[in-house]
């Protein structure tokens, strides 16, 4: 994974560029403001150092002058909000793709790993029951439910087709986790008891990292998984291979502890 460096990681999703442009604009402005203030500040420090026989001069000019920098900052911020933050936030976090047009993946976080579930050919996620949770069945999938029979559950490995909208339903089994894929510029807390939707459209084939970014216990730093963005055909092939590993539909009595 040569995706990381001393600057921002490579961009691998459709909105990564938008987020980066914001980062660049803000940092350029920040450095600009800081340098200008710094020059002015240094000038004041040198010019008005104490010298014998030169008394302090009380400035009698109004307080309005001190509001000018404020005004500039405000204009800049209003511009950022109106033309950048609001529309981008709307498209990245507020509008979710329709489940019909997107690949729906369910990611369930737990201490300390990720469970990725694909709905299988029927496009439906099967029922889960907390009492069925077992180390061999991390989600407590109820295989007696017909919709659950073809569900594919993978640990710490998420395969996504390139150039496809992916709707991720983020869940947690225990504590608050956070799904962070630096290359996607994507981050979202997984809140237990909630279904948090998020979406991404990967646009670059590659191998990325899905890390937990919210303190989740003693093994927090070990909680990571891999994201593979593949071509459509590679993805389908992988999905088929995984589906073959699914157990045959069991009788109603099995499962559980």
């Amino acid at each position, binding site marked *: 994974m040569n995706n990381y460096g001393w600057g921002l990681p490579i961009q691998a999703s459709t909105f990564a560029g938008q987020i980066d442009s914001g980062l660049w604009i803000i*940092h350029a402005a920040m450095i600009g403001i800081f340098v200008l203030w710094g020059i002015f500040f240094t000038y004041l420090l040198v010019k008005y150092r104490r010298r014998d026989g030169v008394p302090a001069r009380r400035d009698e000019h109004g307080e309005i002058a001190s509001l000018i920098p404020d005004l500039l900052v405000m204009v800049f911020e209003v511009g950022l909000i109106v033309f950048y933050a609001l529309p981008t936030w709307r498209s990245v976090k507020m509008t979710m793709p329709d489940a019909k047009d997107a690949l729906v993946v369910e990611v369930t976080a737990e201490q300390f790993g990720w469970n990725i579930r694909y709905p299988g050919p029927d496009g439906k996620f099967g029922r889960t029951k907390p009492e069925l949770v077992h180390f061999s069945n991390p989600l407590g999938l109820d295989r007696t439910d017909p919709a659950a029979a073809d569900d594919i559950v993978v640990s710490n490995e998420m395969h996504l087709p390139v150039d496809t909208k992916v709707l991720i339903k983020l869940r947690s089994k225990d504590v608050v986790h956070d799904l962070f894929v630096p290359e996607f510029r994507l981050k979202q807390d997984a809140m237990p*008891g909630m279904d948090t939707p998020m979406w991404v459209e990967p646009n670059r084939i590659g191998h990325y990292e899905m890390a937990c970014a919210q303190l989740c216990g003693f093994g927090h730093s070990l909680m990571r998984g891999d994201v593979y963005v593949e071509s459509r055909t590679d993805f389908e092939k992988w999905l088929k291979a995984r589906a073959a590993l699914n157990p045959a539909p069991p009788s109603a009595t099995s499962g559980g502890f």
Partner: protein
Amino acid sequence: MSSDHGHDAHELSFLRKYVFSVDHKVIGLQYLITSFVFLLAGFALMMLMRWQLAFPGRAIPLIGPMFSPDLAPNGVMSGEFYNALGAMHGTIMIFLGIVPLGVAAFGNYVLPLQIGAPDMAFPRLNMMSYWLYLPAGTLMLLSFFLPGGAAQSGWTSYPPLSVINPGQTVWLLAMVLLITSSLLGAINFLVTSINMRAPGLTLMRLPVFVWSEMVASVILLLAFPPLEAAAILQLMDRVAHTSFYMPKDLVILGQRYAGSGGGQPLLWQHLFWFLAHPEVYVLVLPAMGIVAEIIANNTRKPLHGYKTIVFSMLGVGVMSFLVWAHHMFISGMTPALSNFFLVTTMIISVPSVAILTCLIFSLQGGSIRYNVPMLFALAFLPLFGIGGLTGLPLGLTVTDIYLHDTYYVIGHFHFVVVTGSIIALFAGVYHWFPKWFGRKMNDRLGVIHFWGSVVSMVGIFTPMMIMGLAGASRRLYDPTAQVHNLIVQPLNVVSTYFAAVLGVFQLPFIWNFFHSMFRGEKTPENPWQATTLEWACPSPPPHGNFAKTPRVYRGPYEYSAPGRATDFWPQTDPS
């Protein structure tokens, strides 16, 4: 106030005079010393963490074998211990270090003097605040040695993790004590500054520091109770097994959680940040007040835009209650709410920028005296500026998606609080030291302390900003376990070395403080030729402060008034 006044006639016992004192000056110094001890303790915890971050998996040098095997087997820190250090570093530094230092220590000593009052409005309540704070802090520190250890869920204590982790109960109890102490203190400061100002000292003649204390007290008074309630609910979750923050059907490490479920973990985050964001302004406002005092005094001219500063502080105070959820943009909170908090966050930056602008403009036309307090006060301006500016991409919803929970947040916050608040508090110590002890701190040691501290602070926190931009996550016990942190890992080493340097450069300060207390150069009553009321009484002030209630004739910063023989015109000068 009541029967025990009768005993004032004879000499107070040592215990009543220095330990259970009701004198605001003694309580102020008690707070000062105690909070510095807690700052040192927090620093020590941080050094341990920094060792682990720079050299994960290597045994802690020298003291490693001294830890019990469940904290650090073979001297190598465990994940639990690291998380406990992280949680306690944050808690101690913020709640036990900087807030008591800025609000309570300086507030207690300086505020009554600056308003010409004989003492606080409720002296015994004041003593009670301190004697709640000290056990709370001690309990917090002792929790490392109690069964279950210290809290491990970050200073933010997000449930469900905090409900299931060991150690949290003691943290919550200590917090409830501490909050009660802060509330009593806040009430005391507000009543004192509303009711006990010297005649002639109208609101618009108050020193900026008094204003900053008042706004900070309002924030403490109204923002702390929600956290107190939230902490009680979390305590119930832990002790009585209720489910305020525990949703249904949790499966924790393979075990079903036994509680009834039906709770809302997100609710804690709302209640916590409803306090914790205003809390940042509690950390920063007194610092700004101190800097304003020192700048006015050492430029020998009135502050530029006194009114702007005062109203901006009030604006910051009010707005600080309306921005809390910008810490929760990606928490799963309704995304539409984020837009509201985005706008309020940008609004609150306006008064903050105004204060900083006024302080910088105050230098213009001055006759700047570069003494040690002024050096610290001047360093505050650009460094706090960095802290403020780097808040911008974090306050902006979109860029926060990427920067949230990275080292960028750590860098930003520490620029605000360390190179902001702590630097200003150091300035305050150097500035008011002559008032406290009638002696001056050594200048040469002060300058060494200044340059050493500022350079190493910048050296610690700048690498964090770079790491954050590269995507490195915070709160990782072993940063090398996640691939995306690997390349910038050398910066962690840089930070750690600078942190050690910072520690070394605090030694001259500590020595200087205690040495000057007894051996320092004696100073006159008003060594800085200042105008405000605290310099109109003897140093150190006797019990009751002023021989007779002072009368105030003018605003706080009448320096270099035209047509006067001296370049300062004290507030009490009737001419």
